[in-house]
């Protein structure tokens, strides 16, 4: 069984540009979660999608947005990039909505804003 896949692995962008990060969940998983892991700040919750709908959003500005496609894959878009957006972006999927399910994480996309 393929795990959660994220692309690209690394992304370098200039301040002010837009970045698009992609995530494919494990087959059969309908929930996709996005987290930002900046240096020294732990994992900060960004977005949660389930069945194509945004279910919850963390304390991030509107320039962080995303969507979930009918095949449950997901895209995270970051507009008007700022230097502090440099971080590891992790995507996770879970079997169901219940918090009783653990998450399966992808290996992340390392975004560097210069």
């Amino acid at each position: 069984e393929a795990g959660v896949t994220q692309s690209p692995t690394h992304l370098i962008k200039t301040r002010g540009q837009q970045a698009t990060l992609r995530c494919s969940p494990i087959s059969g998983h309908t929930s996709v979660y996005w987290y930002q892991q900046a240096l020294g700040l732990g994992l900060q919750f960004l977005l949660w999608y389930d069945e194509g709908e945004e279910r919850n959003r963390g304390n991030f500005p509107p320039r962080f947005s995303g969507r979930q496609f009918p095949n449950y894959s997901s895209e995270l878009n970051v507009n008007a990039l700022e230097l502090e957006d440099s971080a590891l972006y992790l995507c996770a999927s879970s079997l169901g909505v219940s918090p009783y399910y653990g998450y399966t994480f992808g290996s992340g996309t390392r975004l560097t804003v210069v």
Partner: protein
Amino acid sequence: SQQGEEDPQALSIQEGENATMNCSYKTSINNLQWYRQNSGRGLVHLILIRSNEREKHSGRLRVTLDTSKKSSSLLITASRAADTASYFCANPGGGGSEKLVFGKGTKLTVNP
């Protein structure tokens, strides 16, 4: 903040020794989970303990949960150099939110 906190922030031990990491959280929970992250990589789910459980084992891992103290501990027995990683506790955010809230992690170094 609902975020849990791991203690200690960093731990360095010799191979063969046991490693104990603690986690405190603020809200009532229905489960608590532990994850491991190798340097700069994704997190790997280690173990989930439900609120009605007090102890759970998985191989060399032992997790305890004390809901009265809002705390949990992760014990790794007979540590190996390959156990070197960061370890995070996580709990559901509560209030109808199914997202997991992570602590900042304990960085474990096991010296050969």
